């Protein structure tokens, strides 16, 4: 095809030709075209099928309000469903496809829904698919969804990047039409930091679509000049292709910038889209207005458009949607379509004007008091039938019809904080609420100021008001001369005549009849109307339909429109791709990954890693010949207990605590006492929540008189620090104590096993013999001839063990040095699995036991809670119910038959007791295989557990379908007297 509908003029670049396809057919267009304008230029009016009835539809608009021309763009992994052809910028090679049709757009089998429409009125689904209830989810809903779907998703991963960004400005101006440009010019010249954002790829708004002049220029030229002037101001940031999506709290606006949507693929290193968070001190909504249609029978045929859209296609895109055109209007703005199109040489069949009064257009058949009562043309408009004021009907052969029912200010963003739009009797439309977002004002058509002059002057005025509010100098702008004509609108919402369907919401297929049915069934409140008919609930949020539907309901119920109400809008202003909302937080980058200082070394050893919060920790270190993880873990455990093993424990939280009151502070934070701890010693501490439940545990070392370091569990490093700061700042602000998190500052390794001391003595510069450095000692030391380090003689494994910390940047060198020093002893590196095995063998509690529901008493540590001093959680840990001597106690568990494995999460049941909640005796928290005992062992919480030692019970897991006879034993499976760690 050869762009048969292309006419002269317009803002397209005819020197370049762009090739594209729609449903596989090749077409051409030019830079400056949208997909819709290029298709219309090629005579293609049919672009989609409607959601419910599969009615053939073409675009009714030339902007983001479009309900009908919804298409799929691109193919393969970049395929994108449900995009509006009216805003899709054309590029060379674009492949577009229609959607919601089978087998083709022109012959759609689901068009049968249209013939069956009497059955498909509002509420049809609710009333019909009631019985049986179980059928809804499995049978009805999938069928309905398939029949009434929109586009389809590609199942491939999106190859493009999406970014998030942050911007700050004094004044954010939303929309770059005459009001927005004038506001930006005024504020920019005054020196304010301005952001001007517009969803279009060409700034200028309606100025690009009209033939109106500003000063001595065409509106489009003035816009272009103004944009050029603004681009030279360093304090002004122009953001075309950027839709402001919503008004958040405190002057924050979200916006999406389509950086690369107009390109076949993004430029190297560029994102597809950016989600901006714009922090503004003042904001001006200059988003223009959206034209609304009039409802009449069969008003949805391709070729029937908003009158202003016909002008946009002719003036901006140089496209004649039809060669014989009629206009149906209730206001003077609609008349412009007739005069503009006639000036372009297009044949105007008639202007059907619902108003009786007013002047007649010269040289045009202008029918006063007339209405369009029906149309014909299955896949595109062929004729309209009109009813003259005198009652006579007439059929006119036309292939395009422009409809104007007036203009609705785009106040959406101003109502995002629930402000109620205000009805304006002068333009018969809603204008922005008076209680909208703070520091947001509206200018131009968005404020109901519909003429070009009004747009320019309110734009300048609101910019000056914003400057004044900011305490900046205002700028007296010269307002160029522009038209200032009134709209002269006489309300006319729908044609009463006709038995057929008159469409209001074309995207959700809602008709005047549906509104009447809603009224008949008493769904007259606007919220009920919306939900009963789905009016305005499609992806366009009813931009062209909400007010009309509301006005018809008002008329039917004999109320005014303000009495009937209005629905308010919510973000986003237009649909946003999930990719933009996700940004870079997807896949591997969904959250940060923290690597331990020995990560590189562990990778070299072929370690298997496990996610622990954000950390990656070595889980075990397989050796050649080992085919199962158990072989590796058993070897690591046995060798550690036989000689020495090394484990990276950097992930444990570390908090340095300093100050004269540090000991007293720790007494408050921990259930046990720390102030009595001598310098150079470490003590295990149990931290409670204020409600008496255990929060965390760990060791605290006193390195100096006023110098302490606390460790937390890996998972609680951040919450414990926050809690300590709360206790310090909020509860005991008079204490002399300071905290700093040093988790990232120190690389820390556990060195455990009978040869741990011999190994460490090779790297530690000071004497660490048992006499010089006994069990639970700690000190600031040096290693390798002078590197500062911290040494703690503490043990989680039950062995003679130390933890050694060096500044993080030496962590990699330290693990290599330790492993080298350990060669003589056959030292092994061990991971989190072996750590877990050894702590369960030793009966130490960890995350599975500190599950946020358990007390010190449950853990067998009740005596640690000192009642001689006040501490967080002390009072409430003594509550009835938490002090039950027969409550849950930690126990050890062994299978009676050592060959049987245990399953974590299994519940204790007495022999012969049914597996019911009433008979539940507690549960297994941690299960490991102990290579020393040669069987599965577990820790668990058992009711009245201390009395149960020696009993035999069943460990039942209904999920895993396992049942094992077990013996209840002491949780200290290994070296219960602790002789090894004092060795």
């Amino acid at each position: 095809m050869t762009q048969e509908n292309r006419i002269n003029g317009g803002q397209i670049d005819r020197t370049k030709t762009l090739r594209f396809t729609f449903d596989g057919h090749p077409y051409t267009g030019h830079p400056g075209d949208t997909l819709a304008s290029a298709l219309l230029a090629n005579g293609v009016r049919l672009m989609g099928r409607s959601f419910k009835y599969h009615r053939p539809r073409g675009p009714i608009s030339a902007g983001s309000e479009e309900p009908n021309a919804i298409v799929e763009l691109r193919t393969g992994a970049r395929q994108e469903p449900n995009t509006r052809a009216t805003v899709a910028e054309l590029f060379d090679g674009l492949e577009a496809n229609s959607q919601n049709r089978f087998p083709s757009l022109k012959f759609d089998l689901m068009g049968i829904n249209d013939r069956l429409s009497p059955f498909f009125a509002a509420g049809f689904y609710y009333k019909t698919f009631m019985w049986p209830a179980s059928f809804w989810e499995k049978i009805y809903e999938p069928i309905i969804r398939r029949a009434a779907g929109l586009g389809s998703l590609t199942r491939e991963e999106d190859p493009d990047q999406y970014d998030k960004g942050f911007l700050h400005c004094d004044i954010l101006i939303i929309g770059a039409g005459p009001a927005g440009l004038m506001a930006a010019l005024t504020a920019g010249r005054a020196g304010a930091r301005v952001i001007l954002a517009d969803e279009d790829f060409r700034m200028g708004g309606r100025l690009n679509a009209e033939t109106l002049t500003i000063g001595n220029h065409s509106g489009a030229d003035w816009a272009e000049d103004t944009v050029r002037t603004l681009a030279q101001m360093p304090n002004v940031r122009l953001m075309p292709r950027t839709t402001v999506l919503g008004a958040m709290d405190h002057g924050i606006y979200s916006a999406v910038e389509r950086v690369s949507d107009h390109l076949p693929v993004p430029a190297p290193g560029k994102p597809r889209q950016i989600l901006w968070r714009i922090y503004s001190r003042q904001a001006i909504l200059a988003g223009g207005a959206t034209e609304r249609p009039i409802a009449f029978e069969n008003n949805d045929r391709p070729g029937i458009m908003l009158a202003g859209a016909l002008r946009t296609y002719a003036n901006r895109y140089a496209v004649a949607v039809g060669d014989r055109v009629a206009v149906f209007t209730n206001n003077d703005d609609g008349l412009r379509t007739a005069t503009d199109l006639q000036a372009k040489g297009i044949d105007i069949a008639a202007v059907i004007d619902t108003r009786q009064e007013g002047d007649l257009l010269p040289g045009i058949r202008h029918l006063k008091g007339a209405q369009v009562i029906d149309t014909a043309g299955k896949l595109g408009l062929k004729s309209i039938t009109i009813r003259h004021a005198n009652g006579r009907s007439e059929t006119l052969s036309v292939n395009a019809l422009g409809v104007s029912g007036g203009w609705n200010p785009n106040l959406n963003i101003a109502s995002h904080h629930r402000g109620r739009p205000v009805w304006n009797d002068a333009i018969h439309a809603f204008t922005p609420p008076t209680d909208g977002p703070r520091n947001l004002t509206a200018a131009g058509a968005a404020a109901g100021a519909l003429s070009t002059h009004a747009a320019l002057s309110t734009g300048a005025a609101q910019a000056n008001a914003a400057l004044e509010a900011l305490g900046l100098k205002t700028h007296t702008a010269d307002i160029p001369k522009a038209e200032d004509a009134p709209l002269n609108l006489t309300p006319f919402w729908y044609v009463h005549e006709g038995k057929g369907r008159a469409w209001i919401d074309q995207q959700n297929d809602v008709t005047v009849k549906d509104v009447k049915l809603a009224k008949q069934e008493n769904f007259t409140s606007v919220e009920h109307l919306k939900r009963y008919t789905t009016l305005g609930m499609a992806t366009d949020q009813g931009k062209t339909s909400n007010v009309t539907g509301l006005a018809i309901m008002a008329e039917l119920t004999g109320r005014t429109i303000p009495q009937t109400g209005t629905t308010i809008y919510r973000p986003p202003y237009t649909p946003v791709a999930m990719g933009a909302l996700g940004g870079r937080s997807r896949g591997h980058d969904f959250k940060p990954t923290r690597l331990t200082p020995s990560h590189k070394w562990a990778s070299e050893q072929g370690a298997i890693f496990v996610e622990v919060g954000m950390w990656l920790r070595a889980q075990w270190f397989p050796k050649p010949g080992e085919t199962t993880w158990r072989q590796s873990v058993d070897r690591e455990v046995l060798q550690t207990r036989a000689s020495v093993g090394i484990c990276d424990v950097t992930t444990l939280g570390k908090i340095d605590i300093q100050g004269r009151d540090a000991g007293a502070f720790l007494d408050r934070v921990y259930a046990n006492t720390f102030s009595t701890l001598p310098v150079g010693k470490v003590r295990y501490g149990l931290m409670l929540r204020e409600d008496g439940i255990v929060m965390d545990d760990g060791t605290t070392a006193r390195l100096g008189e006023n110098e302490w370091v606390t460790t937390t569990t890996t998972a609680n490093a951040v919450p414990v620090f926050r809690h300590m700061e709360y206790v310090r700042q909020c509860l005991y602000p008079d204490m002399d104590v300071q905290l700093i998190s040093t988790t990232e500052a120190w690389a820390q390794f556990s060195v455990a096993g009978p040869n741990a001391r011999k190994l460490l003595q090779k790297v530690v510069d000071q004497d660490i013999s048992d006499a010089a450095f006994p069990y639970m000692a700690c000190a600031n030391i040096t290693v390798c001839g002078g590197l500062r380090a911290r040494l703690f003689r503490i043990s989680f494994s039950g062995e003679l063990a130390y933890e050694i910390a060096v500044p993080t940047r030496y962590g990699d060198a330290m693990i290599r040095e330790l492993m080298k020093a350990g060669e003589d002893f056959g030292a092994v590196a061990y991971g989190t699995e072996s750590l877990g095995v050894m702590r369960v063998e030793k009966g130490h509690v960890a995350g599975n036991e500190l599950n946020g529901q358990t007390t010190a008493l449950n853990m067998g540590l009740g005596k640690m809670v000192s009642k001689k001093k006040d501490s967080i959680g002390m009072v409430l840990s003594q509550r009835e119910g938490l002090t039950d001597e027969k409550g849950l106690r930690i126990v050890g568990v062994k299978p009676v038959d050592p060959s049987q494995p245990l399953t974590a999460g299994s519940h204790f049941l007495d022999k012969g007791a049914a597996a019911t909640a009433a008979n539940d005796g507690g549960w297994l928290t941690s299960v490991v295989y102990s290579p020393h005992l040669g069987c599965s062992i577990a820790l668990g919480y058992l009711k009245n557990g201390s009395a149960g030692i020696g009993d035999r019970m069943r460990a039942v897991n209904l999920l895993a379908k396992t049942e094992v006879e077990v013996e209840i034993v002491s949780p200290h499976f290994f070296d219960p007297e602790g002789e090894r760690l004092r060795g």
Partner: protein
Amino acid sequence: MRLTCPLCGARDRREFTYYGAEDYLNRPAPDAPPQAWDDYLHNRDNPAGVTRDLWYHDMGCSSWLLVTRNTVTHEILAVEAVADRKGGAA
């Protein structure tokens, strides 16, 4: 949403962690009656209007902040560092 931290200036909400009502500043004495502890830990007003609550500047200066705000308009009326308040809390 933004909070103006007395030390760091106006910062995005995502730098802060919400904790709970101002009541958390008024920890009872160890020998206080159970009702006082219940009130301290559990019982909260849910005002439509001005409320005061504790926030923590996690991604900033680690200050605990007492924020006075309006739950209806979302206005932030005041932000004070708890540790700087005159008279202290305990």
